[in-house]
């Protein structure tokens, strides 16, 4: 009796488990991880074409937006290293005299000229004394940068030097830096030291970085498919040659060799860069496809096709290839990710295309300008966030495709 009850319950369970399989929308390709990852990658990819409609991408050119560098005499610029220089500058400043009240005293145009070091180009119309008496001293704080004026005026209202030197110096310095180029309504993601608008850089750079990866991985994949099928299907000496070489190449630290090439061959275009990266993108797919072909060669349907006289080409590309699609796709997304990683790696070392903004080059500029220790998070943060979205999207796609290819990995309760 107990056995019948059990069998009924298991049958019911079976039915319950099988039910969704008859739903025609329940394809293994509708894997949530794969779809989320795909949408993340598509989002970054569409940033370029769609973003152009809403934002002027010409702002990604150097000097098209305000700089984020404060002038050396801005309040709070002091740090341990340039203390003497700042003291000299402060000696020139009218407000730096012993009594802070002196700052409110009418400053003559002659004084403000001495602040700019007598450089006629450094003077803005405001600094020539056309405005009320107190303003020249203040506007001189902005170093003639008209964009920085409102913020600098704010800070000038605070009692000057004496109060600020008592605070921790570096913190003050960072705070002062952080005011320049911070995100505003005019530049939602801030600007950087060469006067590029970060939003425009993102719109121009992110799709480009993605494109490098796509081109490189496609070339690598094409080579991998050809070599993998040749090795796995033909076997013999072709197999051992291809396998040995791909095993050897996979061990070579690709980035290091790419650095040598990048150092000699100055990369100017994105396509060249992608070609370079494809040099090391083929061994992975080759190995994977060879292993799959070896395991599939003995399957029933392949032997059936062989017996019925199908050509090798037909068996390889019409019988085996469709069954390997999830594997190939998983390997492809993994490869795109690896290629983008290698590309950003080269760019972060300064070996990328210098004339076109890409995400990696932006990080390189940010690091060379010590943006991390200047607290300018938007400068390195924007490209990193974009790259993290791309990498996570590709990673999710790879995991999802792995699960599509290998149903065991879908797990029972483990679906995380």
């Amino acid at each position, binding site marked *: 009796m107990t056995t019948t009850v059990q069998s009924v319950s298991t049958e019911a369970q079976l039915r319950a488990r099988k039910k969704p399989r008859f739903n025609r929308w329940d394809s293994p390709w509708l894997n949530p991880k794969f779809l989320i990852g795909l949408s993340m990658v598509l989002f970054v990819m569409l940033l370029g074409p769609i973003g152009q409609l809403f934002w002027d991408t010409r702002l990604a050119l150097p000097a098209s937006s305000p700089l984020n560098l404060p002038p050396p005499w801005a309040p709070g610029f002091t740090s341990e290293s340039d203390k003497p220089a700042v003291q000299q500058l402060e000696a020139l400043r009218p407000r730096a005299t012993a009594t802070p009240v002196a700052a409110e005293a009418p400053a003559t145009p002659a004084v403000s000229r001495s602040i700019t070091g007598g450089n006629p180009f450094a003077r803005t119309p405001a600094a020539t004394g056309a405005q009320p008496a107190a303003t020249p001293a203040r506007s001189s704080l902005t170093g003639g940068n008209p964009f920085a004026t409102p913020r600098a005026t704010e800070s000038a209202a605070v009692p000057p030097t004496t109060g600020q030197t008592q605070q921790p110096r570096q913190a003050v310095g960072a705070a002062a830096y952080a005011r320049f180029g911070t995100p505003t309504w005019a530049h939602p993601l801030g600007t950087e030291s060469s006067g590029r608008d970060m939003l425009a850089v993102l719109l121009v750079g992110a799709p480009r970085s993605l494109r490098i990866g796509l081109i490189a991985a496609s070339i690598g994949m094409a080579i991998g498919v050809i070599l993998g099928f040749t090795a796995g299907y033909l076997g013999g000496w072709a197999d051992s040659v291809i396998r040995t070489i791909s095993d050897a190449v996979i061990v*070579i630290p*690709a980035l290091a060799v790419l*650095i*040598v090439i990048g150092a000699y061959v100055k990369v100017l275009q994105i396509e060249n860069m992608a070609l370079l990266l494809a040099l090391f993108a083929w061994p992975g797919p080759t190995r994977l496809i060879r292993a799959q072909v070896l395991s599939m060669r003995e399957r029933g349907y392949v032997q059936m096709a062989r017996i019925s006289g199908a050509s090798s080409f037909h068996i390889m590309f019409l019988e085996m290839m469709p069954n390997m699609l999830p594997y190939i796709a998983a390997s492809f997304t993994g490869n795109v990710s690896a290629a983008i990683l290698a590309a950003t790696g080269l760019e972060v070392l300064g070996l990328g295309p210098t004339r076109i903004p890409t995400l990696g080059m932006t990080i390189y500029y940010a*690091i060379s300008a010590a943006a991390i220790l200047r607290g300018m998070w938007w400068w*390195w943060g924007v490209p990193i966030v974009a790259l993290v979205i791309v990498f996570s999207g590709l990673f999710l796609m790879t995991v999802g495709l792995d699960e599509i290819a290998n149903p065991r*990995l879908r797990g029972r309760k483990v679906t995380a």
Partner: protein
Amino acid sequence: MGGLTWNYVLKRVGMWFLTIWLGTTIIFIVPRLAPGDPVAAMIGRMTAQSGYIENAAQIIEAWRARFGLDQPWHVQYLRYIGNSLRFDLGYSLANFPSRVEDMVMQALPWTVGLLLVSTLISFLVGNTIGALMAWERTPGWIRNLLPVSLTFTSIPFFMLGILLIYVFAFWLRWLPASGAFGRGLTAGFNWPFIASVIQHAILPATAIVISSMGFWALGMRGMMITTAGEDYMILAQAKGLKPSRIFWMYGVRNSILPQVTALALSLGGIVGGAVLVEYIFAYPGVGYLLYQGIVTSDYTLIQGIVFMLVFTTATLVLILDLLYPLIDPRITYERG
């Protein structure tokens, strides 16, 4: 010793030679693809970047003689390979009297130390996490926690490094942002120096560990799911063994083997990633030296370092390959 046969060892050593030969050949060919005399091109680029160079003509002559550039290319090639195999990497172009191999040898211990420790930690932790993810008895809260820790997987080493510097060095000011030891400390076997070295290594090592951990965890999870369905696991349970024993000695022990292969395959990528981590953290290892070589257009230094990286990676893979039969006694390498 299981499958450690002469045939296997010979094949592995052959692969080791092939890898190094391929790497060296690429390094040899690339400069010669650029039009013109490589030495003159080197000097020319250096001049363009860093201004006038004293005795440029003499340097060019000396290098031509050294490379034997007047001789046919196969003589040059053989001489180059011979020099490389004897670790004769020549003089640095930017810091002329010092030799490349000396500079690399000074930097190598830092890189090897950092990489060895962080890769080991990430391999152990990542595999444990992956095994736990696939283990039925894992408490629910750990299982929910683990995928969160894996979100860092997709962030490359150096980007995580930048974030870590910002948070822990710039914002919280807990740890130093760059270098390998504090200023004013004499290198030696004294406590302040060692403490400083550890303190400086925490951030770069964390960057490597956190971002490579997930890779191991994912692979391990896949293997562990397969292993969990095996009959011997059920037998172990039926025998009434302790769950921890089943987990470690039956589950993990049988799933770890492909992970070791994966470690050998991904060493090249880890080395490449470490180059960038060192650059971000100004850690005085090989990667930072390489960056300095790029900045100063020191081509002999760049080539020498890359040769050393290829050599080291190939050697590490060879060691792993030779250790493999010891941990997997089943496999006799007939097809290897």
